[in-house]
């Protein structure tokens, strides 16, 4: 496993959000965290990235214990993060938003600005536009592209399909397939089962801060009981 969580517990103040979460992501895998709103998917990704550090438990990344590392160390070790609210720097242009990631963390690899712009051609068209003035779909592509710029070993994607028109969801699914074909490992959190089935190998289902089910995506898709119990809206 390139990334594993062992009995991770995370709190927001006194609220116990993640309760003994254990999961693993293998090299080159695409793994989905599934669950309804507010069950702890975002907190899981934030905990891995070090933005909301765990109170207990271990996070192993490439064999190294990183649960106590600050986010900038994790970025340098090869973790990248696309938050659900995208967090594009409003004051920087589209191109600067991409460049800044490569300036902050320099790792060798396939991805560079040219490749990201050919993956999402709209970013080349919007090159000089301020982040503030970009549309939701463009920001999503920019946030994902920015995560690739440091050539991370594992990329964490929070709600990649949320709030997008069906056509853009398809574009994004194709992009994730391309990203994976270049050897990137992906852990994504999403509510859209159909989208997760298309792009992921395996899935974990979270409910109230605990992993309640895990399995191959096809098995989860076929398991109507699990889908109705934990994923149906």
């Amino acid at each position, binding site marked *: 496993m390139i990334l594993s969580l062992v009995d991770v517990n995370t709190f927001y103040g006194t609220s116990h959000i993640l309760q003994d979460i254990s999961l693993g992501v293998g090299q080159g895998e695409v793994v989905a965290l599934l669950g309804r709103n507010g069950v702890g998917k975002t907190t899981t990704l934030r905990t891995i990235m070090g933005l909301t550090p765990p109170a207990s438990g271990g996070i192993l990344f490439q064999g190294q214990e990183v649960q106590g590392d600050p986010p900038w160390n994790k970025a340098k070790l090869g973790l990248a993060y696309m938050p659900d609210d995208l967090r594009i720097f409003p*004051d920087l242009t589209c191109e600067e938003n991409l460049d800044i990631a490569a300036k902050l963390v320099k790792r060798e690899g396939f991805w560079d600005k040219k490749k990201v712009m050919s993956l999402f051609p709209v970013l080349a068209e919007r090159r000089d536009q301020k982040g503030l003035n970009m549309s939701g779909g463009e920001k999503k592509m920019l946030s994902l592209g920015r995560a690739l710029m440091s050539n991370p070993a594992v990329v964490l994607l929070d709600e990649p399909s949320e709030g997008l028109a069906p056509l853009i969801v398809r574009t994004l699914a194709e992009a994730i397939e391309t990203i994976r074909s270049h050897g990137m490992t992906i852990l994504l959190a999403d509510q859209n089962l159909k989208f997760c089935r298309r792009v992921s190998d395996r899935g974990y289902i979270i409910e109230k801060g605990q992993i309640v089910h895990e399995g191959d995506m096809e098995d989860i898709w076929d398991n109507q009981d699990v889908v109705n119990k934990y994923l149906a809206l």
Partner: protein
Amino acid sequence: MLESIVHVCLAGLSQGMFIWLVASGLTLIFGVLGVLNFAHGAFYMLGAYFCYTVLAALGDNFWLGLIFGPLFVCAVGFLVERYFLRYVYHLDLPYQLLLTFAFVLIFDDLVKIVWGAGSISSPTVPGLGGSVSIMGRMFPTYSLFIIAVGPLVALGLWAALERTWAGRIIRAASSDREMAAALGAKVPWIFTGVFVFGVWLGALGGGLAVPYVGLLTPGMGESIVIEAFVVAVIGGLGSLKGAFFGALIIGLLSSFGTRFLPSFDMFLTFILMALVLLWRPQGFFGEASR
């Protein structure tokens, strides 16, 4: 009459550029760190005293004092940020104000202990100590020098923030420290660097004040920091452009007030601030939501 107005304008410009030098550091620190640094005036005062001490030690060389004096103040600023201020970033504004105000009192007393409670008369600057004739009236050369330094500092700051990668990273960290950290920026060190740089600007203002104000006194930073706060509020807290134009307006207003309405000098400044707060609470260049 015309030459009188020109001279009042020049005096206003030089006063405004002085306030700008202090307000720029204050604004930079607020814009990036979100901290209202009340101790900024104390750093200005320390800048003046350290500059004076260095120049006196190095054979009355003002320029060496101006280069090295503020560096000592930067070291003080580093300790303040690293060991005190860092722990109140996440707290409400009143805690930051209380802490930084405590430093105002501490530094004022330290200055009294080290340099004495009395005032020190400041030296003139070789080559800039005289006056030049402008439209038949004499105007201090040093004030013209200050009028030139102000825009240079503004231009340098603008170029550093807008045109360098360090500047872009600072802007990114100031708009979203968490995302900048997730992308690999060591945000606490960036904040330390920005704070120390802001302190340097304040101390540089203090160093430049040495020949300008004539007398160095403990507490000399208090009146200028209030003016700098007024300027920052008028221009829009956190906006460097706002602080620059705010300083120009306040400098000119104060100069015209002193000349034509001497009894209402300070009153004019504060009435302007009150009007701006009523009409546009975010200041001329501030963001409404800030």
